[in-house]
């Protein structure tokens, strides 16, 4: 009995602590936790009964009464503090006092956030000790704050939630996944421009329609074998594009809901009326992705000269040994030289493979209203082999009439759209009336865009997964399709104000801060103490 009297309370507290610890660290041991809590309850009552006499007199004392009222006051004050903080978290005002407001969101982002209709959840996958985590969370906090509760976020560790990371297709630390309804969008680097653009994409109503030209032996999206394009189809659908077939031979008009038309390695020439349909599509701001394989559909080469592109009559042979690292032969150029462009910007220098590609050169003659640009080149040890017979025999060597390396293998063209033609295009769109989502969003038709690559192999099932090919392919499509609502957020890097000092000045700062300033204070102290002693 005396044992219970003395140790009962401590044991009760011990049991409660143990239960709390269990809840924190081994939450699945629910029964043990309950057992501990019941034991604590029983002990408490038993101890109370054992200490009944003392307890009664304790309760009657003056100190106890004062103590109780003091405790009540403290609880009240704590309540006020908690309330004040809860309110301040909910309605926090914010002032950015840096010069260029670099810690605040741009007005475009704020506008988009305030116009959100459906809730968006962002999951940020960071390792807990990752340096970028704080920056990302800070940014997300601002997004959540400006969105009036529409945007929520949480931080997750891909190592702790591997299942979720896998389901969302997260492959690297620092990936952000935006989800709204059925749709999701990945951001590989947490900065405002990328995040805002992903937000636009994920909340956009309807799907962007990608048309695949059919009828000339193009690569099949339904084909799951090595030469097929089923993987490209899956990737496009994952990124919220809808794929449709386009048979221009049957209906020589590109539908109004087309965001992009992909022409993936036709083997036979396109008919004149098909080319006319493509012209008409481009003249109203269309976007076409040409993949033109070597020695096939030579009519395309003639067609593209109109837009400032010359397709070489050759196959690029690569002697740079780097391809051997990936186990590919000289007929597969490994591209790691990109020209600055939105398509290649996000590639981050990752190499791409262009298997059996022809060269894609810019025409010497300038065409009015057409701005072509080379996107990627092979290495200097490569050349464009024009000798077909030698190619078939497998004996190639650079000749004087071959294009010397580096050989351009991909190019982009932007075309000015005549205002009249654009207006007509709008009219045609309204007639079409099929694409609810794509239509009506881009009211101002932007420039028409063309991307030409010298091979369709890079989009085939065999090569899409190789190196940066998938990213390259997806970047091309998204650049073509999404240009209209890309949001450009001005970079808000802090102002540059470097410090230039001489060695002497540097030394002066060192000694002043480390020795003179603290030393001066210390001397003051010594002086005061000595002075006091003397007074005494």
């Amino acid at each position, binding site marked *: 009995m005396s044992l219970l009297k003395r140790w009962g309370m401590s044991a009760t507290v011990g049991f409660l602590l143990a239960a709390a610890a269990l809840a924190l660290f081994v939450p699945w041991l629910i029964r043990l936790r309950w057992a501990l809590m019941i034991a604590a309850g029983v002990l408490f009552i038993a101890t109370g009964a054992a200490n009944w006499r003392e307890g009664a007199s304790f309760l009657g004392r003056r100190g106890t009464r004062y103590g109780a009222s003091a405790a009540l006051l403290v609880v009240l004050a704590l309540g006020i503090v908690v309330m004040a903080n809860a309110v301040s978290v909910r309605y926090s005002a914010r002032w950015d006092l840096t010069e260029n407001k670099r810690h605040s969101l741009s007005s475009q982002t704020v506008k988009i956030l305030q116009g959100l209709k459906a809730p968006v959840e962002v999951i940020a996958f960071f390792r807990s000790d990752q340096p970028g985590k*704080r920056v990302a969370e800070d940014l997300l906090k601002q997004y959540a704050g400006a969105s009036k509760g529409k945007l929520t976020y949480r931080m997750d560790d891909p190592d702790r939630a591997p299942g979720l990371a896998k389901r969302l297709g997260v492959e690297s630390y620092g990936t952000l996944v935006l989800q709204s309804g059925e749709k999701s969008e990945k951001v590989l680097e947490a900065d405002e421009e990328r995040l805002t653009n992903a937000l636009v994409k994920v909340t956009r109503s309807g799907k962007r329609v990608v048309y695949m030209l059919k009828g000339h032996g193009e690569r099949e999206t339904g084909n799951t074998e090595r030469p097929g394009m089923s993987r490209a189809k899956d990737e496009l659908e994952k990124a919220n594009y809808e794929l449709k077939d386009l048979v221009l031979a049957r209906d020589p008009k590109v539908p109004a809901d087309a965001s992009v038309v992909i022409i993936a390695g036709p083997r036979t020439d396109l008919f004149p009326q098909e080319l006319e349909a493509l012209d008409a599509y481009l003249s109203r701001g269309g976007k076409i992705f040409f993949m033109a394989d070597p020695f096939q559909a030579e009519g395309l080469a003639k067609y593209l000269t109109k837009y400032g592109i010359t397709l070489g009559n050759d196959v690029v042979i690569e002697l740079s040994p780097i391809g051997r690292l990936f186990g590919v032969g000289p007929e597969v150029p490994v591209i790691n030289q990109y020209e600055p462009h939105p398509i290649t910007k996000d590639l981050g220098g990752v190499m791409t493979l262009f298997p059996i590609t022809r060269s894609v050169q810019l025409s010497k003659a300038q065409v009015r209203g057409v701005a072509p640009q080379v996107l990627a080149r092979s290495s200097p040890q490569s050349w464009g082999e024009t000798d077909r017979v030698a190619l078939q025999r497998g004996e190639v060597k650079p000749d004087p009439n071959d294009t010397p390396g580096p050989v351009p293998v991909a190019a982009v063209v932007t075309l000015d759209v005549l205002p009249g033609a654009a207006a007509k295009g709008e009219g045609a769109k309204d007639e079409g009336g099929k694409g609810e989502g794509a239509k009506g969003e881009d009211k101002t038709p932007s420039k028409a865009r063309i991307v030409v690559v010298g091979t369709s192999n890079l989009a085939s099932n065999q090569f899409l997964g190789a190196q940066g090919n998938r990213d390259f392919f997806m970047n091309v499509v998204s650049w073509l399709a999404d240009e209209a609502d890309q949001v450009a957020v001005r970079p808000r890097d802090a*102002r540059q104000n470097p410090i230039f000092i001489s060695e002497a000045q540097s030394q002066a700062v060192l000694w002043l801060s480390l020795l003179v300033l*603290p030393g001066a204070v210390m001397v003051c102290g010594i002086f*005061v103490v000595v002075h006091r002693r003397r007074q005494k």
Partner: protein
Amino acid sequence: MGWLPVFKKEMRLYFGSPVAYAVATFFLFVTAFFFVPAFRGFAELSMRAAMQPQFGGNLNATESILRPLIYNMAVVLLFFIPMVTMRLIAEERRAGNMELLLTYPLRDGEILLGKFLAALVLYMLILALTLFYPVTVAWFTRLEWGAVATGYLGLLLIGAAFLSVGLFVSSTTENQIVAGFGTFGALLGLWLLGWFSDTTQGTLRTVVQQAGIIEHMDSFAKGVLETKDIVYYLSVIGFALFLALRSLDSQRWRG
């Protein structure tokens, strides 16, 4: 104005003894160890960027020197403040002065206020000395004074919060060592609370983040004022002073 005599007596104690000077000397010495390498490293980086522009990174003096410095100063405070506050009331009780003090025609609040303000003024003076660092930077390049101002406001608030917690802990014991370690432990606890935010989700995460004492320093250090940070520090100050008041009051009726 009952607090004034207490305030004056405390100030005399601080500046008539080596206490204030010792604290200031060591604080300046320690913070210089954060400032000097940051400053010289930045100067070196500027030089290198001037010679090889392709390596020119983000060369903003406010961001690279002052922001980490202000944050680190808050860290140093965690160790210094308990040493300043541990004697505030514990010493009076040890020396048996507390009964005397309580019988003076002073209200408990005035005693506390006098002591708190004295410690705060000492702290502000030391903080003013550290303005040497931003001034040094501004001597050589343009500084964003707006961001420096928010940083120092943050330092003032977090320092005052630390002081008030120290005052409360000191009022609960007559042992200075216990008061010092108790304060340190309490502050460290509030500090580490923020770390748990990594393992939490949703509302609990928000709660933990708001409760952690250092998390709020971040926005001050980078030049952003947020009402929730200000409210947090003010509520810590208010609550700790209230607890100290309750603690003094309890000494009357506790036998």
